[in-house]
């Protein structure tokens, strides 16, 4: 499998390793919080959260240790699938159909789209679902797809679909700040 964006596989592996360690640390924090909060619950309500928190904390510390070791030895992300490791050339073929974009690049690239989603939610909150959807579809298609024609068609069809769906299924829309109700 090749990396197409100019970053070497080793560089990507190292950056991905660092992200992985950061994510492991976040998971440790989550399970530690679960464990600590569970201690305050009544006995019957605390059994399951205590088990989940305790076991999760133990395993997440384990995965962090393994990832740190892998990161130091610069070996992470180069090993084959666990399940397929005995499947020979079938595994190589599985690798060959993957999309080759470095994980580190994907992580940064994804932030842009997360910003789009949050902006859409914010728009719904401020101007309501119809205006927000029209703005979101129009702007997204112009900026990301670069086509005014697609934007106009998309905007019109999007609003039409939402209107039909809303009336056919009697859907409720989120209340907005500026336009009360819808």
């Amino acid at each position: 499998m090749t990396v197409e964006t100019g970053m070497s596989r080793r560089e990507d592996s190292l950056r991905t390793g660092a992200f992985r360690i950061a994510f492991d640390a976040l998971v440790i924090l989550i399970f530690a919080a679960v464990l600590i909060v569970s201690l305050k619950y009544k006995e019957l309500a605390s059994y399951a959260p205590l088990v989940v928190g305790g076991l999760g904390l133990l395993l997440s510390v384990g995965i962090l240790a393994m990832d740190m070791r892998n990161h130091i030895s610069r070996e992470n992300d180069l090993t084959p699938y666990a399940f397929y490791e005995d499947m020979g050339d079938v595994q190589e073929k599985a690798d060959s159909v993957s999309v080759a974009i470095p994980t580190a690049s994907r992580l940064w690239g994804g932030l842009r789209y997360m910003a789009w989603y949050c902006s859409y939610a914010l728009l719904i909150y401020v101007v309501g679902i119809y205006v927000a959807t029209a703005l979101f579809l129009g702007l997204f298609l112009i900026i990301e797809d670069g086509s005014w024609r697609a934007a106009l068609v998309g905007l019109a069809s999007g609003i039409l679909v939402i209107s039909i769906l809303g009336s056919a299924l009697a859907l409720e829309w989120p209340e907005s700040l500026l336009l009360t109700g819808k």
Partner: protein
Amino acid sequence: MWEAAVEALSLIMEPSRLIWLISGVGIGLLIGIIPGMGGAVGMSILLPFLFGVDPLKGIALLIGMTAVVHTSDTFPSVLMGIPGSGGSQATVMDGYPLAQEGEGARALGAAFFASMVGGLIGAASVVVTIPIIRSIVLAIGTPEFFMLALLGLAMVGIVSRSSMLAGLLSSLLGVFIGLVGAAPATAQYRFTLGWFYLYDGIPIVVVALGVFAIPEMTDLLIERRSVARALSLGGGRLDGVRDAIANKWLVLWSALLGTTVGAIPGLGGHVVGWLAYGLAKQTSRDPERFGKGDIRGVIAPESANNAIEAGALIPTMLFGIPGSAITAILLGGLVLLGIQPGPRMVTTDLATLLAMMWTLAIANVLAAALCFALSRQVSKLSLVRASRLVPFLLALMFIASYQATEDWGDIIVLLVLGAFAWVMKQLSWPRAPVIIGYVLAAPIERNLFVSMNLFGLSWLTRPWVIVIGVLIVLLLFGGLGGSVIRGKREMPRDTDREAR
């Protein structure tokens, strides 16, 4: 049982339910065509629109959709060389070379026919095994159901394609999400952060959309797949059907393999496709032809990946243990519709279970017929650019999410879970165990509470509890031990969207 089967058929053939089934098949075909989508995403978008719907109509829509995703995902696999879903990865190996040689229609013809027969064999084999499974289901009690749920959770974690530790941790994260809200055994709210929205727990719709749909949409946008290499269909669809008929034993064995693997929690379509491909190659007299455009390399995975859905319904409906992300969301959806999995499925609700099997069978026939009839038109849909499609799906997702409780919390939690799950996906943490853990959290806690109330600690000495307990310990120590000894996490790249 035959009376129940006839009753189930008459229930599902009622015209209004048939319309829902046809709608489900249509949606499933569309979802399968779009590379990177898959049944889990489709089901999570559909789920919120089923509140208050007649249960059998809901079943028709959900199972109709699930059953056929693997039929239409053949289009991008064969014509573009991009797996439409995890289950069709193996189809690419020989399907794409065939299309490059101008035999795309032949590959598609063989794939559709094998898919249809595989789906029918899968449904029939489950029906045949119901009397055997029935005796097992009726013989076990609450403690055993508790242990089976634990076993399901352990298996799903352990057989995850990436790190086993990551698989287990994902399961635990799912259980944690499922614990948010009121405790079943006592009047206490847990992990609500003082936020009223969380008092009733996080709805399955929001969890499913966040864990599956948001990461898939984001990756579709990031990858910006090129459509320029899509190949033309060519002619010879009926030749493909003849190929499938000529390889009838391969179709049969692959379907039985698919059904069996489907019944094992944790092993999804991505596994069975490759297993069937491997089976076809190993049993062939000329294995060197595989990978260069051998029609058997298309027939085997396509037959197996349609049969898997029937097998997956066994643990899901009879034991309440979903074996994959799709069945976990399906289970959540069926509970929303008022259908309870478990022993009732083989007693009072046998007609419902059989209606599901009929739905699977009819959906597979419908899908194959539609794909045959409309293959030229349908194949063009796989050329729609992600950047034009995703914004619509996103808008639909936000609307769908809001229908869960009609609270802004739905959208906020959707975004938070979506961002978290997307990072998980990038770092090769499996996501299927999250949704399975979430779905199993409530039954695990409830069954433990009931077992303790009924039997005290003596339930731990019940024979089947001990057997299942030993199995869990062996699995955990075997899996984790192996992982630690190797000292390396096995990290896949981005080849399977559905299972991760």
